[in-house]
């Protein structure tokens, strides 16, 4: 082997190994977030990372999220390492990109089914996933207890309710029972894609335990099926839907998903 080819050979062999070790080291670097009581929550159905132009682009999803730089995010329609999405672990990728901790859960019986994830800038103390009763596609409820400070812990839930009417009531009842059973704090946030409009019986059922954070901010009850519900909070400072990703640009390419991110800024009592 001549010298020139030897260098080419060694570079091709060694470069992936070195880069993979460097990424491992970077991933292990510690991150810190300062404690606060006004927290920004976001729920976003990311549609497997495929935007309105059908193209897969997680960076675009990250950019859509960064418009409001949320502290805690609930993601739906997340895939991990499947051929249909080029083998990308979306929850992991977005968590690394946004510098957050994460927990992902998909149905136990069918790990290929889409799942939900919670991403948090603050440490996740408890993480659990549950399957919702379903006769069609398996759906899940993800639960994380997030520690904002030593005095403030919040139970965060993320779900994606099925599209078939016969499953919706059972799924809502199951998740409400589960939430009451497993919560360790009185401060709870439930968010996700409910596939239900605001005036339905099922959402009415949710509202007996939670408040719709968008209600005071003039949200059209028929405009969204993505919600952020909360209880145990002090005040809701803002709630809105991010509709324009790039000001003055009107392209399908600016939307990372077929859903829009819903954001609520909630103030919690510190004790």
């Amino acid at each position: 082997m001549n010298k020139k080819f030897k260098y080419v050979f060694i570079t091709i062999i060694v470069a992936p190994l070195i880069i993979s070790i460097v990424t491992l080291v970077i991933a292990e670097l510690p991150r810190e977030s300062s404690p606060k009581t006004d927290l920004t929550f976001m729920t976003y159905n990311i549609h497997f990372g495929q935007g309105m132009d059908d193209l897969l682009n997680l960076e675009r999803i990250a950019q859509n999220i960064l418009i409001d730089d949320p502290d805690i995010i609930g993601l739906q329609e997340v895939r991990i390492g499947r051929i249909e999405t080029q083998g990308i672990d979306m929850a992991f990728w977005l968590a690394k990109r946004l510098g957050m901790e994460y927990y992902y859960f998909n149905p136990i019986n069918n790990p290929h089914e889409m799942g939900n994830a919670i991403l948090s800038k603050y440490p996740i103390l408890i993480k659990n996933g549950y399957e919702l009763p379903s006769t069609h596609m398996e759906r899940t409820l993800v639960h994380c207890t997030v520690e904002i400070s030593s005095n403030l812990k919040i139970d965060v839930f993320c779900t994606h309710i099925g599209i078939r009417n016969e499953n919706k009531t059972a799924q809502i009842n199951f998740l409400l029972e589960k939430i009451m059973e497993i919560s360790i704090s009185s401060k709870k946030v439930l968010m996700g894609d409910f596939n239900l409009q605001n005036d339905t019986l099922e959402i009415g059922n949710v509202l007996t335990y939670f408040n719709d954070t968008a209600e005071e901010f003039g949200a059209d009850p028929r405009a969204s099926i993505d919600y952020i519900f909360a209880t145990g909070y002090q005040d809701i400072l803002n709630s809105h839907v991010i509709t324009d990703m790039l000001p003055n640009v009107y392209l399908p390419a600016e939307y990372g998903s077929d859903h829009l991110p819903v954001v609520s800024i909630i103030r919690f009592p510190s004790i």
Partner: protein
Amino acid sequence: MKMKSSYKGNFSFSEIENDLKSKPFYTLFFNLMVLSLFFIQALRAYVPGVYVAMFHVVFGHNIVENLLILLTLIFFTLPALTNTLCKKFGIRRVAIYSIYCIAICRLLIAFHLPNIWQTILSGIIIAIYGTFISTILTLWFDNDINGIKSNNKIIFAVFSILCAFLLDYLIRTIGFSQDISLMPPGLNAEYWYITQYIWLFIQIPLTVVCIYYTRVSFPQFRNDASSVEGKGKKGTVYSLLFVGIGMFWFLLFNVFLYPNIIAHYTDSSYYVSNIISIIAVIISILTILSIKKKILLNIKVTVILNCFMIVSISLFLFLGRILTYFAVILVSISLIIMYLNFFLLFSRMSTIIFKWKKVKTISNAFAIGLVFYILFTVLHIFTTDWAYIISAFKGLGPIIILIAIIILSVSTIISNRLTKQGGKKE
């Protein structure tokens, strides 16, 4: 010392470089590696493209337009037409134009075209790669001026293809598991139109170098006109070897190419599983370059390795979350065996004597492999992601993977037996 030398292969890059001359040697290596990388990227992008289109069909959006994407499956039969093209235009010209075509199609994809066009272009790259690989190997293998052993040429070709896998790992590692060509940097209202095309800064030089060096220093092979027809006979058993190559693609592109999925099945870290997967490719390359092929062809060795692979993958699929990192190591060893199986099948495919010309043998092998790749991918999707459509298929995903592993193993063992029998007769 004596033992060591009896295992050591006699492959030498210098021998090939001296035979081809320096520039053509680098052109051949670069083309084989870069076009294989484009093929890997296209094969990874094709199924998601079809998947999105089918999603639209299910929800009733642009049904005709999206169903048209299914027609791209016809492309997969195109490699089988390579021999006809060679008869009409000459094998050298077909080889050169297939390089241009793949390089340009990959460049077009980098322009962030709509999904339907990206899928069509990916399909074209996959099909034409079959033409490229069959023509280039035929040209080179039939060109035996200085008596370079065909075995060394096969080792060089497989080395280049495995280097493409390493490059693919590198690209995905930099992108934290996402292919960086999918990742335009941040949206910015002012620079949006420019930044989404940043991958072009990498793709344009790659395409230009591919085309330029092919024009300037494509190797001058002696038997450029056409290869001679073989005197062997057709045999259905040989088709199994081609199916084995399809299974190799299926297993890699559905599960084992992705450290994410290995990490998920085993409840382990992506980073660790990524490093171990890269080490597996490196060990495979070093094994192919340094160990005598005779050892890999030994039936006992092949049977032991493949049985180990089947047991390891079974443990990974059914007990992965209990065995965690032990399962990751088992998968990595299985990955090495898979790459070695690919090497053995590829060598058999390249040296097989059929009634057909070599170019037809290789291109048909490629087309049969692709058809089985698609067949098993569809089966896998209906037993996993789309299992809710036919509930009887639910939970059968691991069984499909195991069947594919068994077919890959059986085809490798049969291939080795045939090679040994062939060797004895000669």
